[in-house]
């Protein structure tokens, strides 16, 4: 039974020196993803902090002008 599993797996295991390059490529991919996730986490932490500030501050009297509609809001710089 074990041989039935191991024999096909043996064809997929490294048998040459290319394994270092393969590991490097997959690690590079993982590192890029990790950097992206860290940047995203930092940004979201900033948003959360700002949101907390807004919640804790006293709400001023309602503004005179009409709030901008959804289109106008999303037209801001990204």
């Amino acid at each position, binding site marked *: 039974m074990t041989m039935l599993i191991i024999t096909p797996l043996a064809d997929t295991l490294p048998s040459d020196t290319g394994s270092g390059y393969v590991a490097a*490529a997959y690690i590079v991919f993982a590192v890029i993803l990790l950097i992206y996730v860290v940047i995203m986490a930092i940004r979201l932490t900033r*948003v959360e902090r700002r949101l907390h500030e807004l919640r804790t*501050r006293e709400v001023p009297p309602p*503004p005179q002008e009409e709030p*901008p509609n959804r289109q106008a*809001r999303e*037209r801001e710089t990204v």
Partner: protein
Amino acid sequence: MRVPSSSVPSLRTLSIATVVAMGVAFGLVFFYAPIELEEGFLQKIFYLHVPLAIVSLCGFVSGGLMAIAHLRTRDSRWDLRSYVTIHMSLIFGVAVLLTGSIWARGSWGHWWVWSEPTLVSYLIVFLLYATYQPLRFAIEDPERQARYASVFAIVAGAFVPLNFLAVRLSTSYLHPRVLGGSSNLPGPMRLTFLVSLAAIALLFVTLCSYELTAKRTRIMLKSRSRILGYR
């Protein structure tokens, strides 16, 4: 202020699907796909490098299509989608260039081969899109910024398939062909490649969704801060 609740379950579902797909893909790459006779174990890089390249190029073209939708409808949400798609394609592009260089070093003994059309053409596309963000953020007026960025995205998006075709039609074929008429991938390798492609495409969509949600939240927050009279 809350993030639209409908986007939260879909993000969660997408994330779980992506993790599962990536796990299955990497499992197939290392425990199912046989070792290629010529390249040896080094060929395993292709299950990562080629899907990344395909997905990033499709992302650039999609960014152009979304830019067309923006110019047609004047709906700024399409501009935001176009921006996020191109931004994510650039990140994937960095991964393509790095993994490709690692493969070239292992296979050809050089980190970069300037006479190889596929490598150089991808670099040209990448550098072209690298100018997208400086161009975009050099314009202060949001309306003009969105319009100019859309025009750029459309022109550059049209350049991507033309560039791809030019390379395909060129006579020197140093770069291995994975898909197309000359492809001779056996069944297990083809299945592994297709699963990897699906997993990378899913990862792209998931990351774009996260980025879009984060951007929308920041825009809403800025808007609320202004309404409340804060800086």
